[in-house]
């Protein structure tokens, strides 16, 4: 069995020294520091750090401060009610988190959404992805002590949060996809607003690169810090822009395309170095690709007006009053029978690519009105292992740099 990186047996010391890595024994006084939930650099978790001088010997993440028992609560509510429940895990990225759950239900029911509904889902997913990356960038600025990055990122994020509000009616908690389609159609003047937002963000990204990413102070702080090699990334099972910054080209939109991602043209940025700066660059490049996808989606939606946003057999069952409301306002009013819909027995697995990585759902049904088991593994839950294996060996002030660069979000990790 391979030893953990901080053990001191003779075999591993010789092995490491032949590779040119310095090895030093820990001195007698190792003291514990609790970087607790009330700290500007810790988020909603506690990191128990054992220090030897200035070098971290061990870092133990104490998570669970925001554990809100989503899996147990999904077992006592009907099939549609977990959708607003599950999106509060990552409230800033809500559409990306709920679309795979709805896909799993559609697999069990053998239903497919119409193309216009798929494009609307993809549009909202990409708007949320840009907003989520900008949120991560802003919080990274707070951890490094760079409040200008926080102000700029949050100010630009408001543009996309407002776009989402015009499309769905709520700033953060959209509850947009339902099994069979989406809940609301796009307003008439939305494409023009989306194009203006995209043009504005492209201009701003050039300034971001000049001021933040090419800044020698930030480069000195992030270059070579928290290096994750390609084989270690595959072995630890980390996800998202962290694994794309270490040289592995893995994105669920490419490997197992869901919704209409196989009809859209976009690239997947991959960097080889594996340090914190590479991961930040991956996120900035992903924002650029998301802006391309938003433009393509909005073009398609403008060309194909007047199509259904709910699946055909559901639409045929709506009574006359509901069909009139749909024609006039573009809103879908579900029948009360949807509250107690039964899904045939079976098991399904669905996954999607959220802002922070790959999210995985396992849904099992026994033919009733409430789920038998909903298992969700979020990207931040899989990234938590970085604290235990990558952080030791660095100085204490590198901990916020590594934490911010992997974009770990505790409410998502604790579910």
């Amino acid at each position, binding site marked *: 069995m391979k030893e953990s990186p901080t053990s001191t047996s003779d075999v591993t010391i010789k092995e490491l020294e032949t590779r040119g890595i310095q090895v030093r024994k820990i001195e007698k006084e190792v003291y514990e520091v609790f970087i607790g939930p*009330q700290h*500007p650099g810790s988020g909603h978790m506690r990191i128990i750090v054992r220090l030897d001088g200035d070098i971290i010997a061990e870092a133990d993440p104490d998570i669970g401060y*925001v554990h809100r028992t989503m899996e147990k609560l999904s077992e006592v509510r009907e099939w549609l009610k977990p959708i607003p429940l599950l999106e509060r895990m990552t409230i800033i990225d809500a559409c990306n988190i709920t679309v795979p759950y709805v896909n799993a239900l559609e697999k069990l029911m053998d239903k497919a959404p119409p193309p216009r509904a798929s494009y609307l889902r993809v549009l909202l997913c990409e708007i949320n992805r840009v907003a989520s990356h900008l949120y991560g960038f802003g919080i990274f600025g707070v951890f490094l002590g760079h409040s200008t990055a926080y102000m700029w990122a949050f100010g630009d994020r*408001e543009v996309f949060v407002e776009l989402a509000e015009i499309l769905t009616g709520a700033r953060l908690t959209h509850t947009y996809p339902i099994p069979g389609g989406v809940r609301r159609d796009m307003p008439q003047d939305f494409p023009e607003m989306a194009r203006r937002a995209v043009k504005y963000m492209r201009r701003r990204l050039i300034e971001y690169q000049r001021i933040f990413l090419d800044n020698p102070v930030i480069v000195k702080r992030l270059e070579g810090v928290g290096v994750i090699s390609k084989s270690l990334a595959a072995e630890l099972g980390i996800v998202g822009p962290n694994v794309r910054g270490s040289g592995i080209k893995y994105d669920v939109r490419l490997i197992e395309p869901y919704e209409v991602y196989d009809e859209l043209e976009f690239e997947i940025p991959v960097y080889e170095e594996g340090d914190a700066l590479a991961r930040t660059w991956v996120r900035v490049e992903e924002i650029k690709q998301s802006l391309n996808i938003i433009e393509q989606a909005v073009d398609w939606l403008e060309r194909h007006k007047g199509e259904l946003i709910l699946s055909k057999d559901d639409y045929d069952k709506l009574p006359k009053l509901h069909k009139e409301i749909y024609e006039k306002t573009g809103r879908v009013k579900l029948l009360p029978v949807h509250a107690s819909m039964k899904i045939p027995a079976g098991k399904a697995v669905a996954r999607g690519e959220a802002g922070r990585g790959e999210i995985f759902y396992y849904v099992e049904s026994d033919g009733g009105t409430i789920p038998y088991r909903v298992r969700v593994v979020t990207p931040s839950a899989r990234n938590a292992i970085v604290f235990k294996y990558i952080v030791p060996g660095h100085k204490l002030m590198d901990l916020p740099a590594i934490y911010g660069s992997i974009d770990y979000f505790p409410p998502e990790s604790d579910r």
Partner: protein
Amino acid sequence: MKGSSIDRVYVGNLNIAARRARDLLLGKLKLGEIVDWATTFSLWPVHLMTSCCGAEFAATWSPRFDAEQYGALPWVGPRQTNFIVIEGTVTRKMACALRITYEQMPNPKFVIAMGACALDGGLFYNSYNIVRPWEVVPVDIYIPGCPPPPEALARAILELRKKIREKNIASKWLIEGWRNDRDYVSPKEDVCRWWRP
């Protein structure tokens, strides 16, 4: 200012002199209003993120809504701040951190409970892992919403300021040493009993 009031203040014992000066300034000369006015313009929240409403808390101090114009600056340590915003759900593990932070803050201190989860559990009302925040710390202002928009949080800060100035909370605390306008709350059971030293 001549007269017997100064002679009554100037006594040999420093403690008694300080107390008499305080009663004179705050009671008779109405310096209390200036103390209350100054407190309302320096309400600094502490950096404690409890749950997902923290995203709207962060957005309230962003350039679009800018709550710093009300004098509220989020600061790092509980010993130098005087108010807490409880954003969202308080789980059992977080209740311990919340109580310890609240006890470390200097008086007079205030609490705003933000979001539906802080009112009565919100969406997670039947979960086994959450705690009602009004059983752990005494709350002044409640904000409904899930999540409440940043304008609602800014409005809550303004309501808190109105409450401080109308009820003279800060100056009365200086005179009496106790907040009489609401009950003192302490948790019924030890919220930190899961803690291993």
